[in-house]
C-alpha cells in the first residue's frame, strides 16, 4: 500500500510538472521534419543500445556455453 502511494504521488508530480511546462511554454515555430528526424535518431539510439545489450548477451551465451567449453554433465541431458 505504501509503495502504491509513492507511485501515485510520483505520477502526480510528473503530470503536474509536464502540465505546468506546457502552459508556460514559449510559442515557437515547429519544424515537423526536424522533429521527426530528431525522434528517429533518439529511437535508433535506444534501439541500438537495447540491441547491443541483447545481442551481446546472445554472443556471450554462444561462447560461454558452447559444447567445447562445458563439460558433459549427466543432469543436463534429459
Amino acid at each position: 500500500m505504501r509503495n502504491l502511494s509513492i507511485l501515485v504521488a510520483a505520477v502526480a508530480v510528473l503530470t503536474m510538472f509536464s502540465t505546468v511546462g506546457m502552459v508556460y511554454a514559449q510559442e515557437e515555430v515547429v519544424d515537423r521534419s526536424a522533429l521527426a528526424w530528431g525522434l528517429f535518431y533518439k529511437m535508433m539510439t535506444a534501439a541500438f543500445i537495447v540491441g547491443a545489450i541483447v545481442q551481446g548477451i546472445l554472443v556471450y551465451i554462444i561462447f560461454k556455453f558452447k559444447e567445447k567449453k562445458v563439460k558433459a554433465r549427466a543432469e543436463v541431458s534429459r
Partner: protein
Amino acid sequence: MVIEIAKPRPLWQILFSTHHTDVALLYLITSIVFFMLGGALALTIRTELLTPGTTMIGDADLFNRIFTVHGTTMLFLWILPFISGVGNYLIPILVKYKDMAYPRLNAVAYWMAVPGAALIWLGWSDTSWMAYPPYSTMRAAGPAADMWIFGLKILGLSSILGAINFIVTILKCKHPDLPMMKTSLLVWAILVTSMMTLAALPTFTAALIMLYTDRLGVSGFFDPARGGDPIAYQHLFWFTFHPEVYIFLLPAVGMAYELIPKFSRKPIFSYGSGVIAFLVLSIIGFASWAHHMLATGLTFTEKTVFMVGTLAAVPMSAMHVFNWMATMWGGRIKFAAPMKFVIGGIMLFFTSGAGGVVNTTLPLDFITHDTYWVVGHFHMMLMGTVSFIFMGFLYYMFPLITGRMYSERLANVHFWFAFIGTAVVFTAMHIVGLYGMPRRIWDYVPDPTIIALNQIASIGAYLIGIGMIAFLIVLIRDSIKGKPADMRDPFGIGEIYYDYRRREPHH
C-alpha cells in the same frame, strides 16, 4: 517408415499418395524449388539495380513483372508450402496419430497449390504482390493479372483446407494420454497459425472476387467514379496480410522452440510463456493491419490505435527471444547447422523488429513509407529470420527424410555466406531508404551514395546466392550419397530423434 528417400519407391506412388509424409515431401520439394526460382528473380532485380539506368533488364514493365512474381513466389510458394510440409511431416508424429485427420483432403490441398503456382508463373503479372487498385483494376494487363488473381484464390483455398486439417488433427486426433500442455511448442505454433489462417484468409478471398469483378467492369468496389474506394481494398488486403506476417513467423518460432532445447541439451526455460506469447500474438496480429496504411489519410485516433496495437507485439516477441536465451543459458550448446541457422535468425530477428518499431511510430512512418527501408525491414524478417530458421529446420529434418547425414562443412559454407549476405544486403537497403530511394523502381537517381549502397546490397545478394548453391549441393548430393545417419540420435546431442519407425503403411 518415415524415411522417404533411403528406400526409393516409384515416383507415382509418392505423387498419388495421401500419406502424410509423402504429401509433406511433395510440399517441401515444391517449396525449395520455388525458393530457388524466387531467389534467381531476386538476383536479377539486384543486378538491374547494380547501376543506374539499364543494367540487365532494359524494360520497366518486365522489371515490374519480375518483382511481382518474386514477391508472390517467396510468400505463397516458398514460406507457406514449407510450413505445410513441416507440419505434415511432424504434426501426426508429435501428436502421436497415424496420419493427418483427412488424408485425402491433405493431398487435395497440395495438388491445388500446383495449378495456383502455374497460374502465377505462367501469367507473369505486373501488379506487385499487393495488387493495389486502381492500377490492378484499370491498367494492369490481362490475362496476367487475372491469372494472378485466380492463382492466389486457389492457393488461398489450399491454405484453408490445410489449416482445417491441422486444427482437426491436433485437437481431435491427439493421443488421449498426451495433454495439450505437454505437446511440442511447434504443435502450438501450427495450431495457432492454422486458426489465424481460417480467420484472416476469407477477407482476402472476398477482396480478390471484388478485384476481379472490378476488372471485368461489372462492379466498382474500388473505383471512386462508381462510388467505390481504392483504400477499401487496402483495408481488406491488410486485414488478411498483417496476420499473415504472423502466419509466416510463428511456425518459424515454433521450429526454433523445437531446436534450441535439443541443441542446448536443456528443457525449455518457460513452456507456459511460449504458449501465452503464441496466443497473444495471434490476437495482436489482427489489431495492427492499418499500420501499413498510416500514410493513406486515416484519422489521428485510428492511426494511434493501430500504432499501439502494433507496439503490443513487441513484449510478446521479446518473451520468445528471452525464453530462447534463458533456455540456452547454462546449457551445453552444440553448434550444428540447425542451431547455427536458428541463432543467426534470432540475431537478424532483433534487427528487423527494431526496424518495425520505427515503421509503426507515426511521425517516423512518414520518413520511411514506400522507401527501401521498408523493403529492407520485411526482407530482414522473412529472409533473415523466417527463411533462416526454415533452412535450419530442414537440416534438422534431413536425416528423417533421407536417412542420411548432410555435409556439416558445406552447411557451414551455406550458413556463413547466407548470414553475411543477408546482413549486408538488407542493412544497405535500410540505409538507402533513409537516403530517400523509393521502392519498386527500375531506375534511380545517379547519386554516388545511392549507387554505392545499391552496389553493396547487390554484393550481399550475390553472397546469399553463393550460399544457396552450397545449400542445393548439400540437398541433392547428400540425399543420394550422404553417410547413413544414426537414426536414434543423428546429431549426437543425447536426444531421442523423431519416431522414424512408425508402422502405418503408405496409402
